[in-house]
């Protein structure tokens, strides 16, 4: 009777551990963030580049681990907007293109594209000077541990400006580089260059949450299952190893 009770308790504990482990796997974790340390505004140059400009930041997720992005947020600003033609478009890229003159590989393969969305003027009481934009990516977007997120601003008139918010400090979660990507072409015909600001180390403000790749969770769950079967077999046979 006593053994039966002990066995039941152990079964419950094992089940709890398994459920807990699986829950941990499915839970989204913040793997990159520097939202808490804004330093300044980075003008995308859209108003002087034919109304469009694409700037991007290459980031390294915590531990360099790939994952499935379920939430993405970034900060931008818009100033002196006239009318409502101003828009933005967010894209994720794998850095799998040809090597830039400095060495790092250019962004090339598009991993995710938000499509174009209208952006507001942010110099107002609602936002202050800048604005946080968040995307719920639903089932998620699979990304490598090092990739580039970017924003294309369009419809920015000559008297208007728009850009991202940057930080000069290191991210609080994940890491980045002291440079940023600029596409002086278009999304379809890009012309990327890796640039630095002579006065500041630039990381654009963003926050990225991921869940692990399914295979990771599956392997962990399978491992727990095998462990449970071995334990059960040992109990059933009564053998001591």
């Amino acid at each position, binding site marked *: 009777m006593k053994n039966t009770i002990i066995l039941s308790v152990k079964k419950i504990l094992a089940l709890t551990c398994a459920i807990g482990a699986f829950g941990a796997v499915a839970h989204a974790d913040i793997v990159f963030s520097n939202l*808490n340390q804004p*330093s*300044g*505004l*980075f*003008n*995308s*140059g859209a108003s002087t*580049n034919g109304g*469009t400009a694409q*700037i991007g930041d290459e980031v*390294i997720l915590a531990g360099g681990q790939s994952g499935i992005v379920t939430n993405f947020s970034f900060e931008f600003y818009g100033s002196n907007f006239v009318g409502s033609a101003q*828009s933005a*478009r967010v894209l994720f890229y794998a850095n799998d293109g040809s090597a830039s*003159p*400095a*060495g*790092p590989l250019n962004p*090339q393969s*598009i*991993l*995710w*594209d*938000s*499509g*174009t*969305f*209208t952006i507001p003027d942010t110099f107002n009481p*609602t936002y*202050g*000077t800048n*604005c*946080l*934009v*968040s*995307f*719920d990516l*639903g089932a998620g977007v*699979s990304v490598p541990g090092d990739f580039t997120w970017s924003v*294309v601003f*369009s*419809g920015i008139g000559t008297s208007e400006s728009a850009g991202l*918010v940057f930080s000069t400090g*290191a991210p609080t979660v*994940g*890491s980045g*580089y002291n*440079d940023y990507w*600029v596409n002086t072409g*278009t*999304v*379809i015909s890009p012309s990327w*260059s*890796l*640039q630095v*600001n002579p*006065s*500041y*180390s*630039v990381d654009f403000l963003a926050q990225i949450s991921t869940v692990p790749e399914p295979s990771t969770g599956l392997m962990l769950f399978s491992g727990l299952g095998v462990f449970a079967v071995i334990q059960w077999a040992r109990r059933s046979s009564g053998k001591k190893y």
Partner: protein
Amino acid sequence: MKNSLILSLVLGVLVSGLGGYQAGAADVNGAAPILAPELAGLSLSESLAKSVACVTEADASVRDQVTADVLRNFVRSHPLELAQLVKTVSAKCPLQAGAAAGTAVVLQPDQIAAITTAAVSAAPNQTRDVVEGILSRFPANWFQVSDAALKAAPDQADAVVRAVSVTEVTLRPYLADTLAGTTVISASAARELLNRASLASTGRLMRDKQAPGNILVASKTQTGLSAGTVSGLDKSGSANGGTFSTMNATPVFGPPPVPLPVIPVEIGVGQGTGQTSGGRNYSGP
């Protein structure tokens, strides 16, 4: 006795069938071709010249077969130089580029990118035949093959996309409308089209469920196409260099969690300078 007889007959049939299979396999893998030259003892350049001459002198009605035989013969003595033969054949007989490349990748699958590059660079006007010839054998290698072809002949981007759409069935639904409506004008546009078709085909790209297959559609009535200025129309009607319909992830706007300093630093693209080689610094928490 009767059973033994039946057993013997069955075994006989099996053995003869196996023999036939072996003969077939040997043929595919390089049994002595009738139409190929003897290359034993010849240098690479001599082998190339002799092999190409065999193709060029063959009657047009049997040239495909001769090309295949010549390649099978050549690969025995020069397995690592097969792409060179493909390039030479494609340059001398451009119409054989597709057949040569298609046969070559079966003989040396590891050289698929080199063979693509060789054939396309030597016969750029036959790019579609080359890519189709290769992908009809290895459709799953569409990315590698299209990438090599686009690098070798960037101005043949449209041919590459069309060839992929014909041979890679999983991408076809996402390319058909685009191909019906417009011409792919640059290598980078082709890469993006193929990349997005691939993402869409695997469900990794969100798109308008009401318009299946239209993710890559540029307006069929658009005019004035020129490199880098495709007037793609999205739902908002704005043209920003893209050709794609909008995705359905909705942005949510809100105030920043931490406001900027009262007088924020202002910098911009115009102040940037190119990163120097080895100048990249890593920053971590």
